[in-house]
Each structure stands twice: as structure tokens, then as C-alpha cells.
């Protein structure tokens, strides 16, 4: 082959992660369809603000605050191209090359992103510079895992569509270390809109936002308006 590829690439072939809830056909809820049409009527076909449209950030932030009794700010929240980009941006920005990542569950969700960062996966939470904790692992397991981590370890907490109310930021001393990530609108037929979010502590937010901008500039404009209307129609 004339064109040789980077060594990290070779490690990734065959390790693709399927996007969550991808299978089958998804019909957007009517509120989302209406939002798409309204946005097109208004000419919403341009780049949006890098972190995403403000009303959607406000809405998502408010929902997180209400559900988990957090104090997240819309200005520290970034709308991403699916949960995939939220995970990826965290893994690239919150660990250094050579750093260590521990996944409490579903290591396949972050293994590829860790490889691209040049970070290593470890079975031991105590060694990690970043721990990935999907909510689906359950409160008990999460508490046990987080009781082991180093003082400066970053925590990526992945909310799923279950209605859990436990949040690791509530644990003593962890508030400034937890980034919350999630999908948007899967239950509203919005799987094809490919939207997610990351809500970061104030200190980490600018770096995450800048990295997302370098990666994709902004998330799809219409998807964001669709998600806003769908979420508001709750």
C-alpha cells in the first residue's frame, strides 16, 4: 500500500462502537418535526454558536439541575454530535497521552477514544486519571468505584435514559471533577439527529468546548432546534 497509516489506526480497525439505540426506523415526535420546519422557515442553516444554541443549553442544564440537584451552568455545557462525541471529547481533553483510564462498565464505549489519546485502560480504579462511570452500573457500584480513585481523578458520568437521581457530583469533594454526558432525545425519536451533551465543571468547560470546536465546529443546527422542541414538549 502506497499510503501507510498511523500505528494507532491499526489498533482501531475492527473495534468500531455502534451508536446507541441505532437499530430500526425512528420517527421524530411531532414537536421535533415542527421545530425542523420552523427552523428552516427562519433560515437556521448556518453554523450555530460553538457550544450549541443557548436555549437548548439552558434547557438541558435546567433538567440536569432539577433531576440531580446540581448547579450546572448553561455556559459550561456543550451540545455534542451524539453521546459519541461527548465521550470522545472528554477522553481527549481530560487525560494526557500515557495517562490511565478505568471504565467501571462498558469499556468498549471508551477504549477506542483512549487509544486515539494514547491513554491506557486499566482494571484498577485506584490507578486511573479518568474513570468512566455509566449510570447503568448502579449507585452502589459507582460509590464503591469512586471511593478508590486518586484525589485529582476526573470522573465522566454517563447518564442513561433511566430516571436515576443519584449523581457522583454529590459525593464529598467530587463536584469539580465530574463531567456529565448523555444522549439527547432518543426517546423522542431523535436517534437520527445525533445529539448529546457534556456538562462540565467550570474549570474544565473551556478546554472541552475548544476541543469540540476543533473537531466539528458545532453540532447540527436543525438537530438542535428539533431537540429543544422535543425536550420542551416533555
Amino acid at each position, binding site marked *: 500500500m502506497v499510503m501507510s497509516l498511523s500505528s494507532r489506526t491499526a489498533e482501531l480497525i475492527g473495534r468500531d462502537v455502534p451508536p446507541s439505540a441505532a437499530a430500526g426506523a425512528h420517527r*421524530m415526535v411531532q414537536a421535533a418535526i415542527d421545530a425542523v420546519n420552523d427552523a428552516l422557515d427562519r433560515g437556521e442553516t448556518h453554523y450555530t454558536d460553538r457550544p450549541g444554541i443557548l436555549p437548548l443549553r439552558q434547557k438541558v442544564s435546567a433538567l440536569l439541575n432539577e433531576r440531580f440537584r446540581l448547579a450546572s451552568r448553561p455556559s459550561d455545557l456543550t451540545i455534542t454530535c451524539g453521546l*459519541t462525541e461527548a465521550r470522545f471529547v472528554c477522553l481527549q481533553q481530560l487525560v494526557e497521552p500515557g495517562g490511565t483510564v478505568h471504565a467501571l462498565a462498558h469499556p468498549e464505549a471508551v477504549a477506542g477514544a483512549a487509544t486515539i489519546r494514547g491513554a491506557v485502560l486499566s482494571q484498577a480504579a485506584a490507578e486511573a486519571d479518568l474513570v468512566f462511570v455509566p449510570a447503568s452500573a448502579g449507585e452502589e457500584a459507582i460509590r464503591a468505584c469512586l471511593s478508590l480513585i486518586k484525589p485529582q481523578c476526573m470522573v465522566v458520568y454517563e447518564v442513561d435514559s433511566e430516571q436515576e437521581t443519584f449523581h457522583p457530583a454529590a459525593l464529598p469533594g467530587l463536584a469539580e471533577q465530574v463531567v456529565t454526558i448523555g444522549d439527547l432525545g432518543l426517546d423522542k425519536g431523535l436517534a437520527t439527529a445525533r445529539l448529546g451533551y457534556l456538562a462540565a465543571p467550570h474549570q474544565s468547560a473551556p478546554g472541552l468546548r475548544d476541543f469540540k470546536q476543533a473537531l466539528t465546529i458545532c453540532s447540527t443546527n436543525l438537530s438542535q432546534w428539533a431537540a429543544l422542541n422535543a425536550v420542551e414538549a416533555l
Partner: protein
Amino acid sequence: MTFADIKKLDGAKLRYALMDLAKEIPDAIALGRGDPDLPTPEFIVEAARSAAREPMTVAPVAGMGELREAIARNAVRDHGVEVTADNVLVTTGGQEGLFLVMSALLNPGDEILVPDPRYSSYDQAIAHTGASFISVPTYAEDGFDVRPEEIEKRITPRTKALLLVTPSNPTGGIVRPETGEKIAALARKHNFVVVSDEIYGKFVWEPYSHFSMASLPGMAERVITLSGFSKAYAMTGWRVGYVIAPEHAIRAMAAIKSHTTGPVATLSQVAALAAARSDDSCVREFRATYDERRRILGDGLKAMGLEFGEPRGGFFFWADASSTGMRALELSYLLLKEAHVLIFPGTAFGETWSNHLRITTLQPTEVLVEAAARMTSAIATLRRSGAA
């Protein structure tokens, strides 16, 4: 943000800081960002509206099959590049494409040659791989085409790739076919890859015309072409770009893409498909519009005493503002604050370009006239006040 804060910035951060400042000025005229002001053509919008009413499926990570096919067909039709859908990867804008290309190609310690000035958004994608970029100077007297001898001088055993942006953001220069041929010979001799960002390729001004690096004999296996729908069809917000490359590279980039963002939004791909299947008459209309604007804004800039070569392609003027006696960064700030016109200083595109300004043509003609009038009067005041 104060001027003291702005002064500390360069590259993409500088651009975003100025855009944030402009947001606070209600009547600011934006000649900064490369975001076409024109609406997405109606037939594309209509395709999205009807798709939105129906159930949709999440696309494969590499892109919808029909879209990959249509992009491949257009590459054959427009550039004579022999490719199929397997050579195409649909990306979240050209921007994600450039990240995927850099990740797939570069190892830590590798070098990539980048003509200066540059589209600085590539910096992070390159830095993230642990590779470094080596600047290759370009010159106003060449219309900012690249000099093959300047490339050759900088080739080392670590040179993995050359990055071309043609037409160029920010200079409006193009790589002419005769330059392209010499570069191709160098690439074969020294075994490097040419990454060719041709996202502004539909807008090249007479007497020049766009040609694709991959169309040169034997180059399809050495060239990765990056492009997208954002600029060509006024579709920036839809976030659809693409990469054309040898099949094994596409497979690799698709594998990486499954970790970066997964598939592109289906509605956006449906809209892009409508664009890709069209006869491009909308692009011809856009071209006429941008061409007219280019003349109008060019006249305005001349009247201000700025020096520049006529852009050969794209949406940008790259003008030397030395005659104002002010550094471009100060001047941009002043023009934003006093004249309410947003333009970008050269240091957003390369550390040494402190006398240059990048100015876009992406406003209706009457707005461009107004912007030029405001700038002229601000610069005249400046000259009178003795700064110039």
C-alpha cells in the same frame, strides 16, 4: 474582553474572541467567519422537510450509501478522479474530516508541511497526533501559490504529508496545475501523502479554474481529498463534509469516526444527497453572486489604500494593511469598535502575518458597500489623527 486580553490570542482562539465581541454590537457587519450568508437552496431544504415527516434510520458510520455514491460520481464528473463509493467517507463537516485524516496518517514525531499562512483550525488536529507542522512560506507575488522548491527544501525523513488548501483560506490563492504536477513529482520521489482540502473548489475565479490534486496521473493512491457541502451549497449548519481516499484509508478513518462522532445526522445527509444529485445550477448562481461581490468589495478595499492581489478563488481577501500604520490586530479591533465591521487579523492564520487582514465577501452587496464606507471613514480618521 478587553483589547489587552485579545492581544494575547492568536489562531482560532483569536477569531472566536472577536466573534464574541461582535455579538455585543447590534449593527456589526460580519466579514469574519467563512459562513455563507446565502440561504441553503430551496430544493435542498425541501428534501429535508419531506424526510423529517417520515421515520428515518441512523446511517452507517461511513455515511449513507446513496450519498457516498453520489459524491463519488461527482468526483468522476467534475474532476476526472476514478473513485467509487468505497473511496468516500461522509464526515461531520470538513472539519471532522481533517481531524480523521490527521489521526489516520500521522504518528508522533512525523512532520506535515503546511503552507503559511494557514487555516489554523488544522493546528489542533495535527498537534493531537503528536506530529508537528513545518511551515512553508508562500508569497504575494505568486498569488500565494506554493513554490515546489520551498517544499522540497523542507522535506526530511520524517515528512509524512503535505497539506494543501486550494483555494486557500485565508489567502484566496490556488494551487495551479503546473504547481500541482511538480508537487506530485516530489510526493512520488519522497514518498509523502498530499492532503488536499478543496472545500472552496467550486469558487475559482477566471481566468483560473479548479483542478483536483487526485486527478494527476498516479496520484489517486497518494492524495486524500477533503471537501464538503458547507461552502459549496451554503450548508454550514447541516454539518456534512467528506473525504475521498484510497479504500484502506477510508476504512481506517471510518473506524476512527465510530469513536469521534459516529454517523452524521440522517436529515443532513438526505439534504446533502439532494445537493449532490443536483445539476449544480444553484452553485453557478452562487458563483455569479460571489464574483460580483468580490469586485465590489475589491474596489472598496482599494479605495482604502489596502494592498492585495486579486483572490483567485474562495470567499476571502488577504490584504496588507501596512499603509494604515497600524498593526492588523489593533486595526481589526478598532474597526470592530469604531466602524462596527468584523474582520480577522492575519495573526489568526499565522504568527508572522501581523500586517494582514482577512476579509470575507459573505454579505449582500449593499451591506458590503456599507461596510467599505464605514471602514474607509475609520481609516481616514486614523490617518488624519497621525497614526498613519
